[in-house]
């Protein structure tokens, strides 16, 4: 599966790693919904580190659609919350 870290690029991850990543991802969602900014930041960084560690980076000129997308490391809780609303930060 191909995962994009916004602002960084794409990495290819084996499906076997998703159980581990899912835990962090669910945690991140909980923290975002509860408004726990420090927790959100910590988990986001942990999740990104894990993805970078387990994944193989895709070349920049690869045109592969991403199945999963992760916010950039410096994204704030409110930015991510905005992105997940109907309109999001990106119009369309």
């Amino acid at each position, binding site marked *: 599966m191909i995962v*994009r870290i*916004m602002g960084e690029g794409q990495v290819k991850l084996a499906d076997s790693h998703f159980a581990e990543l899912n835990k962090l*991802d669910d945690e991140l969602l909980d923290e975002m919904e509860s408004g726990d900014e420090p927790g959100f930041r910590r988990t986001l960084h942990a999740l990104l580190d894990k993805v970078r560690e387990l994944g193989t980076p895709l070349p920049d000129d690869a045109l592969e659609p991403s199945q999963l*997308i992760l916010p950039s490391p410096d994204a704030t809780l409110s930015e*991510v919350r905005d992105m997940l609303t109907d309109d999001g930060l990106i119009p369309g």
Partner: protein
Amino acid sequence: MSGVMKRMGMIFRAKANKALDRAEDPRETLDYSYQKQLELLQKVRRGVADVATSRKRLELQLTQLQKQSSTLEDQGRKALALGREDLAREALSRRAALQQQVTDLETQHQTLQGEEEKLTLAAQRLQAKVDAFRTKKETIKATYTAAQAQTRIGEAFSGISEEMGDVGMAIQRAEDKTAQLQARAGAIDELLASGALDDSSGLAKDDIQTELDRLSGGTDVELELQRMKAELAGGSSGGQQAIEGGQGQSQPRSQQPQDTPRFDKQ
């Protein structure tokens, strides 16, 4: 998966789908259609092969029958030569029955041959059609892929796709940061101008320096004044007296021991 990763992915994909309808990929449909045509062509070819096999079998039977027929004819001729007309009659009647079979088989052979030719022609036509379809299919697929790539590029530029969405955001962040820095610089200027903030750059003077400058500035003035006075005194003493007198000095001239200016002693 229901976390942030999945939700963000779904949102981005939903946006991408608006621009690129992926409900049905025409390339897959074309490939499927081509597959079906190949299967049909295969069936026709198998039919042609079956008919050809039957034709061959008929030809073998015909050869055998004709062989038997000529054998019976020979036997009839020999029987007649030996004066056995009855035997010759028997041989010829068997031959006649065989001839009837041969005629029937020949008719069947002709029919099969006709069928085979028709089928071969159909197979050739179908093959040509399938080839043409394959070429067209590849062209359509290439066009579609190009259009898709174009759409993706379009998406990327308009910031719809996630491929460029993050780049757009990075630019936005950079712009925000620049604006923030500009605003901060403006605010600092205002604060410095109002005196609410000390300038640590060393360009502004503190009060001690200002006083020192004032004092040194004053000394310069005094020194300049002395220099000018000395010049005047050196040129003419009367002038000096006149000036001093003009300054309201009430002492009589006789009380002055000499005309040496006081400031020269300093």
